[in-house]
């Protein structure tokens, strides 16, 4: 007798119905569709895309649209002349706003990438190697976590100066311990699965086990982490610029603009409001996206609204 014809345990109605669902769940490409299927995901994608487009097209369009380059002096300080007026040095707010997102977005993405690579590498190594290696990596992690990200970044910037690569590396490295924790936990879950033991049994080289068996199965938590850390990278880099420790004048940058123009918040608010709104939309977008990815990858039985 055959289980298929007689008492197939999957022959149950509920499973029949979800058969198509399962098939799609097992194909990794469809995660994009599942993110898009959620309202959080759609709004997140749209908001993020909006600001990213603005950030990269803006610098090209700034002189064309406003008539001023981001650093040219247009009028006296804090006037409401022209679209959105002028800033603390009399430059066009509109022009500086259009040009002020490119570096922030680029640095944030780069910092997140650094954090992901370093963090995932250490996290997976700790989980897979176990024992002393694990202990050493996790204790180092604890030490780094004890210094708040911003304090750590300030220390590094004071020592090394506020260059772009310093910002990227320091934000990336302060993300790494947190990402390492997540990827370690995810890897530990996967390592307890028998398919890893099966690969061990066939003496598959360890590097191949990591890349073929482990990495694809922790992409879910890692991509959630990527979205989350991107949000925090944007926040941290903008915060540093806001504190005067990130991008340096006369660069056009949203964080820096807020710092430069906030003394005139009551008389010429545009120099603050525009960049604040742009940063807010961008971080909300990436955070919604991260949440949508989390729901899409958590399990196949996504909560239905």
């Amino acid at each position, binding site marked *: *007798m*055959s*289980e298929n014809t*007689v*008492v*197939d*345990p*999957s*022959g*149950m*109605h*509920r*499973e*029949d*119905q979800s*058969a198509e669902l*399962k*098939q799609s*769940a*097992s*194909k*990794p490409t469809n995660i994009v569709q599942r993110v898009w299927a959620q309202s959080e995901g759609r709004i997140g994608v749209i908001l993020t895309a909006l600001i990213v487009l603005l950030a990269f097209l803006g610098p090209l369009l700034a002189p064309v649209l406003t008539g001023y380059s981001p650093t040219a002096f247009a009028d006296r300080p804090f006037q409401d002349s022209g679209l959105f007026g002028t800033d603390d040095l009399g430059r066009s707010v509109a022009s500086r706003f259009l040009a002020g997102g490119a570096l922030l977005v680029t640095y944030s993405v780069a910092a997140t990438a650094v954090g992901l690579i370093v963090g995932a590498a250490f996290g997976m190594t700790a989980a897979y190697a176990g024992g002393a290696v694990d202990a050493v990596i996790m204790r180092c992690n604890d030490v780094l976590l004890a210094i708040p990200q911003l304090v750590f970044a300030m220390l590094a910037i004071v020592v090394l100066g506020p260059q772009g690569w310093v910002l990227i590396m320091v934000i990336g490295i302060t993300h790494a311990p947190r990402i390492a924790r997540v990827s370690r936990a995810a890897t530990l879950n996967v390592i307890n*699965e*028998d*398919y890893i*033991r*099966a*690969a*061990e*049994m*066939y*003496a*598959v080289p360890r590097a191949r086990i990591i890349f*073929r*068996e482990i990495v*694809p*199965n922790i992409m879910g938590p890692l991509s959630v982490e990527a979205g989350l850390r991107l949000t925090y990278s944007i926040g941290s880099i903008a915060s540093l610029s806001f504190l005067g420790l990130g991008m340096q004048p006369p660069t056009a940058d949203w964080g820096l603009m807020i710092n430069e123009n906030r003394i005139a918040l009551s008389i010429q608010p545009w120099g603050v409001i525009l960049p604040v709104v742009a940063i807010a939309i961008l971080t909300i977008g990436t955070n919604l996206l991260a949440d949508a990815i989390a729901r899409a990858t958590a399990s*196949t039985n996504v909560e239905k609204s």
Partner: protein
Amino acid sequence: MSTAMTTTADTVEDLSTVLRMDDLRVSAVGGSEILLGISLELYRGQILGLVGESGSGKTTAGLACMGHYRTGLQHTAGGIELFPRDGDPFYLESLSTEQTRELRGSRVAYIPQDPALSLNPAIRVGEQIREVLDVHAFGKSSAERGARVKEVLEDVGLPGTDEYQRRWPHQLSGGQQQRIGIAMAFAMFPDVLILDEPTTGLDVSTQAHVLDTIRDMTRRHDVASLYITHDLAVVAELADRVAVMLRGELVEEGPAQQVLHRPEHDYTKRLLAAVPDLAGRKDLSAATMRESEAVETQASETQVSEPGEATEASAMESAEPYLLEVTDLAMKFGDNVVLSSIDMTLEPGESTMILGESGSGKTTLSRCITGLVDGYTGSVRYRGEELAKSTRKRTIDHRQEIQYVFQSPFSSLNPRRTIGESLTVPLEMSKRLPRSEHKQTVEEALDAVRLGRSFYDRRPGDLSGGERQRAAIARALVNAPRVLVCDEITSALDVSVQASIVSLLNTLREERGLAILFVTHNITLARHVSGHINVLNKGVIVDRGTVEDVLENPTHEYTKALLSDIPQL
């Protein structure tokens, strides 16, 4: 089915109905139907065994008796009427939320599947029983409730002392935890008891004690019980009547004797045919079994003539070494000795069962043999050559000759890779065949496990449990091994699927002369899969020999206890 009921109402005692379920329908919210009109009745002082395989809807039906539908399920039609000991009958659906709450735990009580998950780990056990009495305002005074807690604890065979009541759930064994669950259910003298697989996961001897308690309490307190299970043997031990469910429908219902021995519905017949029996008289899967039995006698010719210990002694001297020989193997994790002085052998075409309950060390033993666990002492020899301890240090040939199949098919295949990709891995690593022949070899293996080539491009998520386990067996077969170590490979599967996997193994053994080490906790499978048996208890082999010898004349107390406690059809 109702006709079957009335015609065979041979019991003289009058059956007073306590709960009547009438054409109950439940469906997923906005989706398909889970229960397609179930009608059944529970009688006072009797146990109705509700049998079905996974996904049959039996738990949903049980919880409906408490007016409880899990998230995502909704009651669509039909009703449940309750006839309490005192008071007028009423319909569950007519009750308000508050009345339903009052009903639960007092008139209708529930005993859950896994006591370890159902007892609140942060509340002392006495407190948890008392809570039932408190919320339903039992008795007149606090002292009276305290006395009832003590009484009901003693009723289920636990000490009622204050010291015992102050324990935390994690300080009790699995069997004790389940008795706390039973005590909680009986505390309010309920009319109806719903038991949802309460002994699944317990050892055979613990299960026997818990079943005794349930039977005794049901009779003594004149309760109408619904016992939900997948295990027909347990039903045979316990139930007065049996109902069989299939995909949300009740296919057969009647007195236990009749349903279990003269089943009418095809499904019941097939289900009963799939249940392994200790005597091994049954053809687990008719045609295949007969063929393999023939082969078994052929292959085990030498074993029959020199059974048990004698085989080892003589073969030791003979020129031909054993296919697989384990000598004085011991293993400990830290101070915890898991295995000690294990000796055993395996011949080509022979199937040997390693029988042990959870914690006996059987999985560790099978993993030592395959090199998944190293750090053991003693030796494992293949055709006389000693194997390196760790699989990575073994030669390619050694590694491929002994293959291991994991317990859970839901864990042993990478969900992100196709079956074909997963099954190609052993071929890539053995480098025996040119790459161009890999696909064909994998497809042949898929044919051999009766899955078919179409599974090559599918992923584990699309497969049922049984199909996955076949794929996992196919992976073990691609390099044409001589020894297959099967570690509890049927324990995660329904009985009917188990039967088909067992028959597959027997066919493979016959076709390929494969030696099989069948590791299991289920002694009733012994005669169906193996010629020899090693009984493992607390890391030591306590009984060994041919299956006939051990089952007929067990020498060790443990084996004897096991055989007497096992429920049978």
